[in-house]
């Protein structure tokens, strides 16, 4: 009986502790200063893999705040481990620059948008988070989940001239301001200079819209840069299989996916040409891999020197800069036969949660993320024109053409912003992947997708 009682009481203690854990909705910032034991994680040894993985993702533990007097603000962002350093630094700078708030950074896995919506549904969303311009509409239309900062921005006389016009407009939806941007990630083609040199192909000029770097020249280069077989095959071009990366090609050729009035026009003749050209790259020209060739992701193929060109947005530069013995450069998209070229430049902004208990604090943080000081070492390219044209940015690394990114602002266009982006994206994504893998023709994709996408855009999807 005695041992049973002891056992039961021991069990009660364990259960009690577990119960505390279960009920506690762990808001990291408030917990961290009070629980240094749990929060302080062993700083891992420096040498471990190519990506210098972050020491700890509970940075609050490293900086025990003068708890009690500061107001906590949470900021969440997704992104690769390397990108997170930028956000952590921004958070630290914020904490040092003012004495009223204490911000903490919450790392989230990529593509966490649905989770954010669920958090919002439960009323427990972070105070601020990194948002994208194409997702603003959805958050607002689904019950006004974003903090409206229009009045605050006017009061603080934000200098909107320092932002490109199209970028500034995307902070707004239906006339209200819902976010404040810190960086842009223009899509560019990353190249492996060594592979180009080996095959004796010259890099195109580093300017947008050069008439000599047209689709034919692009294809010719890709063909020359494709060789080998099987697991050693080197591909001339790895495009991003996500359909949004088709926008530059479609726009350059004079087409559009969804027009300004929200109508689906992705099967116009100009757009069709672009879709077809691209699909041929993997299907008939064989200069691009299909999904089965890149089971570890396209980046891995590029990094193991098996691709001469690789499309991604400029947040990839963070990773590229960490690669050892890798001679890389950025080149523009080829110019279409229309003589024009356009680029997609996602606009990364920081938004506040509508129901945050700290709206003023959230706005302060938004302002900080978009300030000159914070965006100096932005992941891709700073949104502010002054910072982007500064020497620091343009000479970030000696061998890469950072001016290309700044110039991308001139050929920038806005992607469709619809409240139903999630479902639209999901639906079209699978179909386009099918086409690129040679399992569906472009025409079939149109027939299949037109009715579905139209219903989705109308909100009846």
């Amino acid at each position, binding site marked *: 009986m005695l041992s049973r009682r002891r056992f039961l009481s021991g069990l009660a203690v364990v259960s009690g502790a577990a119960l505390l854990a279960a009920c506690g909705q762990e808001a990291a910032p408030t917990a961290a200063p009070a629980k240094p034991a749990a929060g302080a994680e062993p700083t891992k040894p420096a040498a471990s893999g190519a990506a210098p993985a972050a020491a700890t993702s509970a940075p609050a533990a490293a900086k025990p705040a003068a708890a009690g007097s500061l107001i906590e603000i949470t900021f969440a962002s997704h992104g690769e481990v390397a990108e997170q350093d930028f956000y952590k630094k921004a958070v630290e700078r914020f904490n040092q620059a003012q004495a009223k708030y204490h911000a903490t950074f919450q790392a989230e896995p990529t593509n966490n948008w*649905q989770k954010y919506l669920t958090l*919002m549904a439960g009323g427990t969303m972070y105070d601020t988070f990194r948002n994208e311009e194409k997702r603003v509409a959805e958050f607002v239309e689904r019950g006004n989940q974003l903090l409206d900062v229009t009045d605050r921005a006017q009061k603080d006389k934000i200098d909107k001239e320092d932002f490109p016009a199209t970028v500034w407009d995307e902070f707004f939806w239906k006339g209200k301001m819902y976010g404040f941007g810190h960086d842009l990630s223009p899509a560019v083609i990353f190249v492996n200079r060594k592979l180009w040199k080996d095959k004796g192909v010259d890099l195109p000029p580093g300017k947008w819209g050069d008439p000599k770097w047209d689709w034919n020249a692009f294809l010719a280069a890709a063909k020359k840069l494709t060789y080998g077989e099987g697991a050693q095959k080197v591909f001339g071009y790895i495009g991003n299989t996500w359909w949004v990366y088709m926008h530059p090609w479609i726009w350059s050729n004079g087409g559009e996916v969804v027009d300004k009035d929200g109508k689906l026009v992705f099967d116009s003749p100009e757009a069709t040409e672009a879709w077809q050209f691209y699909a041929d790259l993997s299907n008939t020209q064989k200069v691009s891999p299909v999904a*089965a060739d890149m*089971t*570890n992701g396209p980046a891995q193929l590029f990094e193991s020197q098996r691709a001469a060109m690789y499309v991604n947005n400029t947040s990839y530069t963070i990773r590229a800069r960490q690669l050892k013995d890798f001679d890389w450069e950025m080149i523009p998209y080829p110019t279409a036969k229309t003589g024009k070229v356009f680029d997609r430049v996602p606009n990364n902004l920081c938004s506040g949660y509508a129901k945050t208990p700290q709206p003023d604090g959230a706005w302060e943080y938004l302002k900080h993320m978009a300030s000159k000081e914070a965006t100096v070492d932005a992941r891709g390219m700073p949104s502010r024109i002054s910072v982007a044209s500064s020497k620091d940015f343009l000479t970030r690394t000696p061998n890469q053409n950072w001016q290309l990114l700044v110039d991308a602002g001139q050929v920038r266009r806005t992607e469709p912003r619809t409240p139903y982006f*999630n479902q639209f994206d*999901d639906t079209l994504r699978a179909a386009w992947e*099918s086409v690129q893998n040679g*399992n569906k023709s472009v025409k079939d994709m149109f027939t299949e997708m037109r009715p579905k996408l139209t219903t989705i855009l109308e909100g009846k999807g």
Partner: protein
Amino acid sequence: MSSVTATVVARRRGRSLLWREKVDGFVMIAPWLIGFVVLTVGPMLVSAGLAFTNYDILTPPKFTGTANLERLFADDLFYKSLRNTAIYTFLGVPLHVSVALLAAMLLNTKVAGQAFYRTAFYMPSMTPPVANALVWLWIYNPDFGLANIVLNAAHLPAQKWLWDKDMAIPSLILMSLWALGSQMITFLAGLQNVPPQLHEAAAIDGATALQRFRHITLPMLSPIILFNLIVALIGSFQVFTTAYIATNGGPENATLFFVLYLYRNGFEFFKMGYASALAWVLFLIVLVFTLIQFRLSKRWVYYEGDLKKG
């Protein structure tokens, strides 16, 4: 105490004892009963109601009548996911049960290292499906994975496994076979309860091993086989985690299973009404199949009188 008084007392006690028993019975099942009403019956009714609405949990629900049902019948992804689930189930379940039975029979012989074998066979079924999926992603890797290395060694052509839309479901079935441990142990228990006298008697009468298997082992095991079949069927209809982690429905929706599609509609597109409609469809399908199985089972399942409890 006289015997009459004792009987009277006993009867009075007996009546109140009976009452006691009724009350205690309900008290003891109360937690379950409450849970049953609040977490099972209630939600089922609510979900049936939701199926007639458009609800994205961030804005109030809107009544839409049979719109979801119409959507459902016109939705090709609905049919595709149903088809994928059906293939996975009707190929995988019989395979799973037969292989588990075979393994159990092999293990039921006197061989050296029985404990080791049992451990080895059971372990994979205990590990978290997430971890399993990640390891098998490596195994199935077309360039560096173990599966193709084995095939190459046997001079067979390499496959694209999870990245080939025709091989994807078979690959997942193979992955599920790896976790046959729990069913195998159940069969092992059943096998060990087959009275050896039956086998001996049959052997004396000249029955071959195969005949003994068909006429003794199988019937004696049939309740367990039925149990395993039903459990496997219900589980297989609800396959989610492996598909979510390993392929996320790809390639090109080849592994878009029903519950995955439901999850997407509910928690990624926030179409709770449509997802509820999908859930009810699944429920009805599973119900029908389970009933069919029970009906059919009367023909081939053999219950020994005193072994069938309650």
